[in-house]
């Protein structure tokens, strides 16, 4: 039995996220912790460097909330809809202030977390040849293979101060299980100094131990477990709720207008004390509309007893 790491979102963010930190809220389309992002805005953290492959709406909202001075990323858009307009205003017009950028490709970002997690000085990859990306980001550097068979590009390790991972379930000790798209949450968690896990469901340790192949992050590297059902909305959780594509569409006109963005933050972030209130405001009909259309349970496997 391990000690309980269960905390409220308010306490976890207050204690674990500090001004000036590099923060990675990971999750590729799936399992993006909007609840943690909103709490960071609500607590008015400042000067954060935000890392994510796809900044998504959550970083557009956090940048609009004034928490960030820098972005590390590989694809900056509202998937299927258009741009991230609060971020674009900072980049194109320095409005209301410039935003520092450090840009990679997806594989470059994955390699950075991998090097960070494995305590390596760099990660080598065959990307970037004959592109302008190394000119745009001088941290992407060519290196000679020590075995004399050509060049590769290197990216530096990324070791976030804090990684936040949303997941289907964890036990009180932070042993965390995920199914569906895995993104690079595992790499980002192992690379980080401190880790917050946000889950749909808190389960007994026995549930974890009954299916150890599904554990992607051990409690060993986890500092806090926050139980926050629907904490990923408008992102989604495989088997629990669908992506709220309507929200992604609705964000486009809101985010084009700075006053509308601030009004949205007042209504949905500053004006609420947490996720439960957010869900109330979202309403039962909207919530019900996002449930999966049916079930698709996995087959079960037999691990066997070996006494």
């Amino acid at each position, binding site marked *: 039995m391990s000690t309980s790491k269960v905390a409220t979102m308010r306490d976890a963010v207050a204690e674990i996220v500090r001004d000036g930190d590099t923060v990675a809220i990971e999750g*590729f*389309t*799936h399992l993006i912790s909007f609840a943690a992002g909103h709490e960071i805005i609500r607590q008015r953290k400042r000067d954060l460097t935000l890392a994510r*492959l*796809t900044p998504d709406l959550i970083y557009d909202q956090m940048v609009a909330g004034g928490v960030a001075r820098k972005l590390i*990323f*590989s*694809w*900056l*858009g509202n*998937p*299927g809809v258009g*741009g991230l307009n609060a*971020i*674009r205003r900072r*980049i*194109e017009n320095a409005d209301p202030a410039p935003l520092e950028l450090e*840009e*990679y*490709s*997806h*594989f470059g970002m*994955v390699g950075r977390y*991998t090097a960070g997690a494995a305590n390596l000085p760099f990660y080598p*990859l*065959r*990307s*970037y*040849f*004959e*592109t*302008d*990306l190394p*000119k*745009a980001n001088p941290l992407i550097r060519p290196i000679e293979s020590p075995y004399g*068979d*050509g*060049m590769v590009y290197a990216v530096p390790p990324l070791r976030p101060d804090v990684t936040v991972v949303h997941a289907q379930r964890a036990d009180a000790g932070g042993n965390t299980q995920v*199914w*569906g*798209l*895995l*993104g*690079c949450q*595992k*790499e980002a968690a192992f690379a980080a100094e401190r880790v917050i896990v946000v889950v749909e469901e808190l389960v007994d340790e026995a549930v974890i131990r009954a299916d150890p192949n599904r554990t992607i992050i051990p409690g060993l590297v986890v500092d806090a477990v926050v139980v926050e059902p629907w904490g990923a909305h408008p992102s*989604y959780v*495989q088997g629990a709720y*669908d*992506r709220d*594509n309507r929200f*992604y569409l609705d964000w486009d006109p809101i985010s084009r207008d700075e006053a509308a963005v601030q009004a949205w933050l007042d209504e949905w972030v500053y004006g609420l004390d947490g996720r439960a209130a957010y869900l109330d405001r979202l309403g039962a009909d909207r919530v019900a509309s996002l449930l*999966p259309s049916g079930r*698709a349970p996995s087959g079960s496997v037999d691990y066997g007893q070996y006494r």
Partner: protein
Amino acid sequence: MTDAAPNGAPSSTVFSKSEMMIVAAARELAGQHVCFVGVGLPNIAVNLAKRTVTPDLELVYEAGVFGAEPARLPLSIGDPTIVTGATAVTSMYELFSFYLQGGLIDVGFLGAAQIDRFGNINTTVIGDDYAHPKTRLPGSGGACEIAINARQVFVIMRQSKRSFVERIDFRTSPGNLGGAENAARIRREQGWLGMGPSVVVTDLGIYHFDETGEMRLDSLHPGATLEAVRDTIGWEPRLAAEVVTTPEPTAEELRLIRVELDPGGAYTK
């Protein structure tokens, strides 16, 4: 051919430019086996191909899925429908390392904001100054490594003077660089597995790449003219000795797009 998708019955044989483009792109996938699906228009083209010319096509999504069997058209490339019923879900590390860089991808299917005559692609910034762009675009995502590592690259995009340009503002994903000879030498010397771009499908026609590494118009869509092509391209395009007419979409292809894949018109508007 009209500009807007008609709202008429699926049996209607009137079709939009976007529908023709998606159908032509799907047909190009005939005979291919493993396809890495990019953001946007490639998503609907490959899902149509799977329902028509190549049912056994293995769909690979950068989110970490091999062998997706989407029951609905994925609205993003991280949609939950690409997971349920798939052959394998992998970490993004495995996907990019083992599947893509390891050489298992036959076709990387990309969209683009700007493309030049050699198939070099920009999806990063519009404007000469990276630090102060006129327009900030999404960036590479996985496109730069797809262009280098996929055995061949297909591109689908609408034609305009702003997108088909003599000189792209930023090279995000390499195509045939400065020409076929130059590209072949660099690919050989640097050990790339990919052979570069092979097809560009637009709302006006279909281009393949000739022996010089340059785009060549091989097929004009019904209703499209050479004049319209020249009006929407930033260089004098090479033409096949005989430019053919792309066969019209069949009633079944239109039904699949309008009824099954994209009833809301998200991709065809």
